[in-house]
């Protein structure tokens, strides 16, 4: 539900839940979460699409460059100390959360018919989102949404709707690998995917109708939660 409301996959809640309550190994929880994200993306993006909150000109380059960035990130992760990066990123996320709250209401947002944001700028943002999501082990949405909202000046609703569509596509490659190497626990997929999708439907239905200000506060709260979690992981 949280994932659907915010245009994220739901892994931010599901993975800690599976690892702490069900004592599931991390890689199995991530595999299950990726499979559920594919379904959640379909239901969430449909709810956002009905309200005209998905921009396919944003989705297409995001899918390409976020995937490329994730490959780059998983290759560089060996050379970068993840713990320090998590601490640095926890501060960056805290700063971004407050920037989202503080963004002026009357600041002009991108409208339909405005000039396209430009492939280069979308590509750079998506690449960074992909690299950092792989380095930090978080979904791309938590980086894509604030970047698209703050840097490309899209409405936060369109940023969430487009992210909801994108994450389902980018999760596919990982799911293929987890399915082939047997990490994905197929006897658990039924209840997990049905539960996450039902929650995603309710969350995205609410999210597509919620006021921008409410969404901004909830999103900032989710970012702060993740920042604290990352900071604690970093200092452990």
């Amino acid at each position, binding site marked *: 539900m949280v994932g659907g409301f915010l245009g994220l996959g739901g892994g931010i809640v599901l993975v800690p839940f599976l690892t702490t309550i069900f004592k599931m190994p991390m890689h199995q929880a991530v595999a299950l979460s990726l499979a559920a994200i594919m379904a959640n993306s*379909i239901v969430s993006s*449909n709810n956002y699409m009905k309200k005209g909150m998905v921009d396919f000109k944003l989705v*297409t380059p995001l899918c390409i460059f976020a995937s490329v960035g994730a490959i780059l990130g998983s290759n560089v992760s060996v050379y970068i100390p993840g713990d320090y990066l998590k601490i640095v990123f926890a501060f960056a996320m805290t700063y971004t959360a407050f920037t989202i709250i503080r963004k002026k209401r009357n600041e002009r947002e991108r409208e339909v018919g405005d000039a396209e944001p430009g492939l280069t700028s979308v590509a750079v943002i998506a690449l960074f989102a992909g690299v950092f999501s792989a380095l930090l082990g978080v979904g791309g949405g938590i980086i894509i949404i604030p970047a698209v909202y703050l840097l490309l000046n899209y409405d936060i609703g369109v940023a969430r709707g487009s992210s909801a569509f994108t994450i389902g*596509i980018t999760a*596919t*490659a990982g799911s293929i690998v987890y399915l082939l190497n047997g990490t994905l626990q*197929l006897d658990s997929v*039924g209840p997990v995917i*049905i539960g996450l999708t039902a929650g995603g439907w309710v969350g995205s239905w609410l999210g597509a109708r919620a006021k921008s200000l409410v969404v901004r506060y909830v999103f900032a709260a989710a970012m702060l939660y993740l920042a604290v979690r990352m900071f604690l992981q970093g200092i452990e």
Partner: protein
Amino acid sequence: MAKFEVDQGILKLQRIILILVMMVLALAVIIGMYDAKIGYYLGYTAVILLIIAAPIRIIAVSKYFKKRNDRRYELLSYIVILIIILTAIIRAII
């Protein structure tokens, strides 16, 4: 708030995929209680359906651009499919 064009084709397609996947998953849960092996295979089928859904959704997006004579983004959407396949291969190798 900016409102982008709603493509009924993509909406319908996604709805059909979702109903199909949910039906298979519901069967997997119900039958899985009596026969774990069949439940396992139904779960496998549901995940395969979800994986196949990604390129199908992207093809629908490319048709959306084709309808609007946007050749550049139409081609880009085909690259997305290529990237999914390449990413899966690269991740499997790594």
